[in-house]
């Protein structure tokens, strides 16, 4: 049976700070889903630590995993686009290599998308957790398309790792931008382009994603660059939406 969902996860040096537990928890959380008919596309973006070994171990144990090795570190935007080209299912779910999905995530999101043929992308709320998986807070963003569309003018209200989208419309708008000025906020830029043409939503009252706040995550290491890119995209959003 061909997979109904492609789970897309880019990873670069997933064993940072000498610990592979974040990466393992991320992979386990996908392999442990209640919905089982998916393929798991992992783009190894030229990792220089033990990431490759871990990925190969997992791929031997579970045939749903497909690993794509980039010859060098091509950064997240290109990695995501390479991954998208290798996704064969009609739905694509994103997952970040240091975060955790709840076991119900794919099942709940797929049902939500199946029930709403108009919706091209659905995000969920997120729980913020620390290195030890302790709950710090829960964040839920606007759900309704019109409200969300307006909110996108003021910032990114779709959690990148939590989204599931239909592949065809995303390919149609050109996938992730590779423009370097949007680096570290490439997700927000895609949501703006997508929201200008299609219905994007968050699932109401559902938080299906644990986002880890740790010192080497992109949002902390490249905080300033991300803020600048976000401001650029806010200007873009005000023109487009």
């Amino acid at each position, binding site marked *: 049976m061909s997979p109904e969902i492609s789970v897309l996860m880019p990873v670069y040096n997933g064993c940072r700070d000498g610990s592979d537990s974040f990466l393992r928890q991320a992979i386990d959380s996908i392999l*442990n889903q*209640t919905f089982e008919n998916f393929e798991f596309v992992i783009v190894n973006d030229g990792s220089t630590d033990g990431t490759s070994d871990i990925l190969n171990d997992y791929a031997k144990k579970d045939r749903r995993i497909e690993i794509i090795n980039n010859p060098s570190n091509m950064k997240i935007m290109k990695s995501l686009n390479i991954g998208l080209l290798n996704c064969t299912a009609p739905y694509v779910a994103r997952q970040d290599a240091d975060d*955790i999905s*709840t*076991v*119900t*995530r794919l*099942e*709940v999101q797929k049902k939500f998308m199946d029930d709403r043929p108009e919706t091209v992308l659905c995000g969920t709320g997120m*729980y913020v*957790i*620390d290195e030890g*998986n*302790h*709950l*710090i*807070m*829960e964040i839920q963003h606007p759900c309704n398309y019109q409200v969300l569309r307006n909110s996108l003018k003021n910032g990114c209200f779709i959690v990148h790792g939590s989204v599931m989208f239909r592949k065809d419309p995303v390919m149609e708008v050109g996938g992730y931008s590779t423009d370097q000025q949007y680096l570290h906020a490439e997700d927000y830029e895609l949501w703006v382009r997508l929201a200008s043409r299609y219905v994007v939503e968050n699932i109401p009252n*559902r*938080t*299906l994603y*644990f986002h880890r706040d740790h010192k080497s995550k992109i949002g902390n290491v490249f905080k300033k660059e991300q803020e600048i890119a976000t401001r650029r995209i806010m200007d873009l959003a005000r023109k487009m939406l």
Partner: protein
Amino acid sequence: MKPLFSVIIPTFNRAAFIKRSIGSVLDQDCVYAGDIQIIVIDDGSGDQTDQIVSKIDPGKHSIIYEKIAHIGQPGTVRNLALKKVEGDFVCYCDSDDLWLPHHLATAMQEFKKYPHLYMVSNFWGLAKFTVCPDGRILNEYVVPPHPKNIVNTNCRVHRKECLNVVSSFNTSCWGEDQDFFGRIETKYPQSKTGIVTSVNGYIRGGNNLTYLFDQGVKQRYYT
């Protein structure tokens, strides 16, 4: 039809919260119709608890409500509930706490992966509720759990067979729940998922037992 899960909810004067707690149990993802049996034992509440619970529509699941004369011992109240368990799995949700929608599914995936397990424990977070006198919730923050914390009652899901050996809660000591689950842990194989699936309502004020305990009020509810 026989339910799969029996959820034990002991309560005393929690009219402002119990609707949220029961709602969070009924709102579980990836369970089938009729899977959940809720057992509410009301320890003689003097507030609107009975009316509120009777108005709750369990939908595709079922709910049992029983009010007893006030005893003031959580262990005794939970023991009454244990006698009514029909499901294959026994779980717990206190009337001022919440389950997150993936609680049962997370535990069941673990049971499915490791069928020899008898108990699965998830993890929890701590919420600070600021409550108005009329029961409205003003602000809600979830803060990191207290460092001293260990897996608590709301996180536990165990097979009914455990009750053959560990049949009841101790009714004469503080921490009767940790004692009960500790005894199960020593008798049966169990695992911990480390995934947060419940939120403890930490009501600042009122008669919350843990709050009183943390405030140094060593008020004994037991004889």
